[in-house]
């Protein structure tokens, strides 16, 4: 690569970093205040109508934030700009942290969440990226389970050189055709008018790219009307 190519690449990388920062920053007070307004300990109790309105702002700003993160991640993964940083960490702690972060959404939809684990397990991998994958899978499950009767189970177990995670939901499930393109880039566009859901369809593509970079795989078992189980594996890496 010539010097000018290198400097252009560096500029692109820095610009992507700048976009990430500039897009995320205004969302901090939008998401933060729309969450705070729902809390009667912080602001005066809202009327039902006001509460419904602020919940819509909160939900949509979170959705926008997810899409921004996903688009930027796809750009980084597509240009090999996403860095992976391996260190030792406890999977059980990570799953607890992920559930804590999704607590607000699962509570709001009154979803029964179960955590199933084998035992504490230390692995050497990229904690932040695995967290991103699990949050993505959990967010999908949260969207698809029925309101007031939703059930989600999350768990992991050791599989020789890998750790296997799963997220099971009692949502509407999907047929074979829908499963086929699920982890492919541009799946939402490819489905054209047949597409059943909104969004960019990037979440699962990013999950696939991340787990593949971490020596693993991702797949789904699902049947229409019977819910879905998303599985993913990552390499346990070598312990010090």
């Amino acid at each position, binding site marked *: 690569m010539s010097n000018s190519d290198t400097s252009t690449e560096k500029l692109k990388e820095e610009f992507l970093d700048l976009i*990430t920062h500039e897009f995320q920053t205004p969302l*901090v*007070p939008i*998401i933060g205040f729309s969450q*705070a307004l729902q809390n009667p300990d912080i602001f005066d109790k809202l009327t039902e109508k006001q509460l419904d309105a602020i919940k819509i702002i909160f939900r949509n700003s979170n959705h926008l*934030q997810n899409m921004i993160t996903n688009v930027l991640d796809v750009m980084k993964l597509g240009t090999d700009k996403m860095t992976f*940083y391996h260190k030792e960490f406890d999977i059980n702690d990570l799953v607890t942290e992920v559930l804590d972060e999704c607590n*607000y959404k699962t509570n709001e939809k009154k979803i029964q969440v179960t955590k199933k684990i084998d035992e504490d397990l230390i692995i050497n991998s990229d904690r932040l990226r695995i967290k991103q994958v699990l949050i993505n899978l959990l967010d999908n499950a949260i969207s698809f389970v029925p309101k007031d009767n939703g059930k989600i189970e999350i768990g992991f177990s050791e599989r020789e050189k890998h750790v296997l995670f799963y997220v099971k939901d009692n949502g509407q499930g999907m047929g074979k055709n829908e499963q086929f393109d699920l982890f492919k880039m541009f799946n939402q566009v490819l489905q054209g008018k047949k597409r059943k859901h909104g969004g960019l369809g990037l979440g699962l593509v990013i999950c696939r790219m991340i787990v593949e970079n971490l020596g693993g795989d991702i797949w789904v078992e699902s049947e229409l009307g019977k819910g879905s189980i998303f599985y993913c594996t990552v390499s346990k890496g070598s312990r010090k």
Partner: protein
Amino acid sequence: MNILGIDDNEDILKLLDTVITSKGHDFVQALNGKDGLKLIEQQDFDAILLDLAMPEFSGLDVIESLKKSNKLKDQKIILFTASSATDKEIDRLLQYDGIMSCIRKPVDINILIKKIEEVAKS
């Protein structure tokens, strides 16, 4: 508890002020790294939320200045960042005595307050 927030975004400082004072804590704010550093030199804080990417005098500059004056180890700093700083860079900063934790923006306000109180009590 006396909490300091250093961030170049006024709306984010307003959010921190709203959430932190609702829990009965005091909140002091600085709109840039230099003012933040002055406040750290004048007062003791139970926790400091420090934005990393600020123009002119960044969060990293605040950390470097405190390191030079040997005052970093006496602080309880929580990095509060929307930048694409990698886990590796964050981990490097977390090695310093005085840097306790990192919160990435945007953040669930319940998790934010939980982390601040954990660090302040530590």
